[in-house]
């Protein structure tokens, strides 16, 4: 998802300004010297400067190269696949404690594989087997407390 350098530069200028603004109420050291705010302010200033230069470069080169057709995003397979991953992980975070790793993990794997055109039965088998292997590896061998949720063991 490429957007123009002018917009990228403007984004960094804004981010730099926000970082500096965020340090305004930070305490100072004895003798009036700057303390916790010094480093972030330098970084914010440099970020705004570099962002400005990238933006200016974009303007000078008339860089309007964008490979995103915003109105056709809903037809862009790569974008929709990526959204499946992002939304899938977000849903996983929301549900996993209540429902459990084995169920939510297998479901996440199945949905993404299905979206990537793996045959349904194959996707279901791989999802269940692979989630089982990951569970065994992390929960049983490495003792990571993966949530069990509604399952009992």
């Amino acid at each position, binding site marked *: 998802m490429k957007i123009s350098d002018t917009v990228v530069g403007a984004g960094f200028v804004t981010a730099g300004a926000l970082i500096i603004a965020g340090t305004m109420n*930070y305490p100072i*050291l004895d003798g009036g010297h700057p303390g916790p705010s010094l480093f972030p302010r330098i970084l914010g200033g*440099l970020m705004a400067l570099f962002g400005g230069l990238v933006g200016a470069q974009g303007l000078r080169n008339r860089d309007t190269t964008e490979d995103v057709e915003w109105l056709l995003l809903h037809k862009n397979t790569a974008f929709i696949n990526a959204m499946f991953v992002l939304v899938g992980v977000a849903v996983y*975070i929301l549900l996993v404690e209540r429902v459990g790793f084995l169920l939510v993990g297998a479901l996440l794997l199945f949905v993404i594989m299905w979206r990537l055109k793996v045959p349904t039965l194959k996707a279901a088998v791989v999802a269940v087997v692979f*989630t089982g292997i990951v569970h065994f590896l992390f929960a049983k061998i490495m003792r990571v407390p993966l949530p069990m949720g509604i399952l009992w063991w």
Partner: protein
Amino acid sequence: MDHIWGALVMLASWKLMLTITICSVYGLFVGAVPGLTATMAAALLVPFTFFMDPLPALVAIVTMSAMAIFAGDIPAALVRIPGTPSSAAYTDDSYELTKQGKAELVLGVDVVTSAIGGLMGAVVLMTAAPLLAEVALTFTSFEYFWLAALGLSATVMIASTDPLKAGLALLVGLFLSTVGLDITLGFPRFTFGSIELLNGVDFIPAMIGLFGVSEILRNMGSSHLQYPITSVKAEGIFKGVAKTLWKYKTNMVRSGAIGTFIGILPGAGADIAAWIAYAVSKRFSKEPELYGKGAIEPIVDAGTANNACLAGDWVPALVFGIPGDSITAIVIGVLFMKGLRPGPMIFEQQPELVYAVYLSFIIANILMVPFGYLAIKVSGTMLKVPRNILMPAILMFCIVGSFAINNSFFDVGLMLAMGILGYFFENNGIPVAPIVLGMVLGPIVEQNFMVSMIKSDWDLTQFVGRPTAAILAGLTILTWLAPFIPTILRKFRSAPAA
């Protein structure tokens, strides 16, 4: 000698040999599959190293990365797609030779030069690191500040094609390192009331997001791709290799030295080493017109350099705690996780561990030849692994790996956010590796700067008051001036004529 014996005893265990074998296979697989990088493999390895002792954890990363950098050459030769960015420099030459029916020779040269380059790097690591550690013992906060500043500068000015965008990525990493309690007053910065952020942005989930999730997102449009693969007779890969390497023996020595030097330079990794070795090779070649059209000479050069660089990267990481590249940035994270502080004292307090790391480089590079042979033998199968199953499987490892570090779902969310950031950055020509270096170097820069300022009573001249600090300051400024030096020299040369 006692230390070497102690290191050998530490390495001589079946568990460690099993770790080396598993990590070799893992590295070869990740390297050979286009779209999966050695850095991503290292990030995904960290959750496992969390449950290992320090030595197996370090040996695992050494072995895996060495194998992955070599294995990146396999798809470069067979399908014209570099398996890792480190093989990109000589992909065209490799593939052109494959089209001429010389795939076996290319892969044979790849595996042997990788092993020789790796061994050369290991020898330099073994000799240079202890010497530099002696020097580092005299360093104060001023020198450490400049060293970290030099690392930051090299990342932006040398290790990148677009210094402005690399600078922005570095600043993002440095900013992320400021999140959490500040070092002077313990004041919470940019935590937005979150208890999880008081300890800062956790490095491991961030790494997994930047290198794992972003890579998965990038692969989402091409998950159906099947590569047309040239079949290779692995039995014939060593035929003609000795003759070729003998012809280019000087190239190997030169590129081994270049690779190791680039590695020692903080911030620049194996991909940069390969590109520079390629450029130098072309400059000194008798047949520069063949480069890019199927020449074996650049493959010898760049193939030696990228593996030599790996060991070189460990020099600043072990001696100063300053990462040589993004993989050693992960190594530093692992060392801290294990309660070990990289720096000159590690050579005094844990000499056996350091020697064991040296020896593991040698073992990994010797094993590279037989393991590499086997990887080439099964290369067709590895390249046929369906990506629409592989990518979701890696996503699962990313999620569970991020959770495993602190048993926190906040970290899984952090991983996701960093994945989106990495995806957006890469697509807009902003490199991701400087973010990691910024996150590691940020606390070193800030802490040493603030300590130096407070102890010198805010007297900036003290920063160049010691000879070593002044030299490091000079080198840092020189790094910033590097792009302008050719212009300045040209002006000087043209001045008398005018």
